[in-house]
């Protein structure tokens, strides 16, 4: 029988508590078909972008540049597609630009050995400056109407499911996912086995950038145009979703696809639930999110330590029984 790890139970318990609390507090409004649609819609972008960042987090690194990358690739791609009057060019343009940003970060982190936290924070400052500058030149731009179809549920939802499925496949069933978790577990080990660590680091930042591009497309089609506030705060929302879902900050085997979904829905339910019970002010949701994040992170790390102590104890027990039997 597979033993449940305490560190994996904590985020589930938190999710259920949050869910039940707001369902009751909102008098069941939470579960209305209308509200469930909203929940899905509000979680979508966090999930899509989070699926990319998960690879980075699995390696024990972090990507705080995804929010600004959404804005950068979104604003530029919109402009390009409008200038060339090729509406559908939006998609490849957004993906190419965001992937390029990811690639640059990957190279800086892996080859120049600057910590990912520092690098992506610098990107967050720097690129946000560039986006604001571009915006002052070109102003708000609207997408071509032909792209409206993408925002129809029968297109958008299958698209979302497809992206999630592909990322789940890559993460759970390919070398990229396994090697990334190995790097997070122990980078020295991964290296001494022969895992191409540098290449894997570049690959995950590229992927994280690419998914930020997908996130940009989802944002653009639901908003209808580009503004410089695109992707604001998204990197934090994504990081929170991943950690609330139960991925340890050190990454490794604790990183799983389902945790991104779990964490993203937890956050959305908090924000949405607070709004349903009439507490929509940002300061309230910010406080609740901040404190919950602290509590859940604390519970998860403490649980991980407990799991570890328990297994070490087991090892010592089997060690002594082995020496006694010889």
């Amino acid at each position, binding site marked *: 029988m597979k033993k449940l790890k305490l560190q994996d139970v904590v985020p589930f318990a938190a999710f259920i508590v949050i869910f039940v609390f707001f369902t009751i507090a909102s008098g069941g409004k939470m579960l209305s078909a209308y509200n469930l649609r909203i929940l899905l819609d509000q979680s979508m972008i966090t999930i899509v972008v989070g699926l990319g960042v998960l690879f980075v987090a699995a*390696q*024990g*690194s*972090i990507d705080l540049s995804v929010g600004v990358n959404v804005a950068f690739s979104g604003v530029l791609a919109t402009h390009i597609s409008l200038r060339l009057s090729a509406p559908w060019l939006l998609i490849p343009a957004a993906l190419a630009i965001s992937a390029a940003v990811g690639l640059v970060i990957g190279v*800086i*982190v892996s080859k*120049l*050995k*600057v*910590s*990912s*936290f*520092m*690098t992506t*924070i*610098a*990107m*967050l*400052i*720097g*690129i*946000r*400056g*560039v986006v*604001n*500058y571009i915006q*002052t030149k070109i102003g708000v731009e609207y997408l071509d109407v032909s792209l409206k179809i993408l925002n129809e549920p029968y297109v958008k939802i299958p698209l979302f499911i497809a992206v999630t499925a592909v990322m789940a496949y890559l993460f759970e069933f390919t070398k990229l996912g396994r090697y990334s978790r190995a790097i997070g577990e122990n*980078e*020295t080990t991964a290296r001494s086995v022969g895992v191409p660590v540098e290449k894997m680091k570049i690959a995950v930042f590229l992927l994280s950038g690419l998914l930020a591009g997908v996130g940009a497309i989802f944002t653009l089609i639901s908003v209808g145009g580009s503004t410089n506030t695109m992707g*604001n*705060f998204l990197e*934090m929302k994504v*990081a929170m979703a991943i*950690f609330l879902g139960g991925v340890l*900050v050190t990454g490794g085997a604790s990183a799983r696809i389902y945790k991104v979904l779990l964490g993203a829905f937890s956050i959305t339910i908090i924000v949405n639930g607070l709004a349903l019970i009439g507490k929509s*002010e*940002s*300061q*309230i949701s*910010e*406080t609740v*999110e*901040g*404190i919950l*994040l*602290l509590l859940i*992170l*604390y519970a998860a*790390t*403490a649980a991980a*330590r407990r799991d570890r102590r328990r297994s070490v104890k087991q090892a010592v027990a089997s060690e002594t029984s082995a020496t006694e039997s010889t």
Partner: protein
Amino acid sequence: MTESLERRGKLIFAAVFVGAIAVLAVLFHAVTGGRFLTASTLTIIAKNSVYPTFIAWGLCFLFACGYTDMSIGGVVVLGSFASCVFGNWWGYAGVILGGLAVGLLLIFINFNIFAFSRIPSWIAGISLAMVYEAIAVFLKVSDSTKPLVMVSLREEYRGLGQLPWSLVILAVGLVAVYFVYNLTTIGINIRAIGGNSAVAQKMGINLTRTLLKVGLIAGTLIGLASALQESYAGMTTVKTGLTSMSMLFYPLAIYLLAQILRDQINIIIAVPICSAIVYAVFNVLALLGVPSGTLQEAILGLFLIVFGVVGQHGNRGVVK
């Protein structure tokens, strides 16, 4: 023999360093069409660079503990509020004590959370930043506190943020921080822990106790920075959506630059110098018409990466 060589090397470096700064200043003067080496520009730089210097000094202590506290911006906002409220009540004593009290209290709380929860400090700091930002918003919108915090610090109590007093504070701060960092047991202990915590602990240094004491020092510096910020700007804008984190970016660049120079200049002395350099550069950019808030931020980001790369040079360990 080594001693005298050492001294000569130091002198040569000092000469080159001062020379480089002079050349840079002249160059700046030239490219800005004679607008750099003027009283007004230099005054602005001097005033600008004081409170980030205090934050950067705080970072010197924080990083020695291995902590990256992303909530400092949020703390400074709340500290500035306190500075404003108490300043308007009690004058200069209120300006200083208000900022100091909030800085000390919150940074000490942060250190306790970092030390005991064992959550990596940067992510715990982000959570704390959210809470501190939210508190600031509460204070701003609540009817009872709004009239207190949403006003400016009275003109007559802003002297600490203006010349010449800001430079006096800087000088006093420099002596005090240099003293604490280099000549006290707590300074030596925290540097030992930052350098090699295994040896430090074997040599009888108590990790937790040292960390909490350093929390008080960092809190003092951040608290003073809040008071100086309020004195300089006269009022504080509330930041939400984690934008308070951006208040750390300039101090971070200053710290990283000082870190690169640390083999040559004691980091506590290097911080104000680097602060002046960084603000001079951005002032020149502004004089050249590079818009602030947009392209200047882009250049700041670039600086952070370049300083990070140079400072990291030669490190072969595992970097996440």
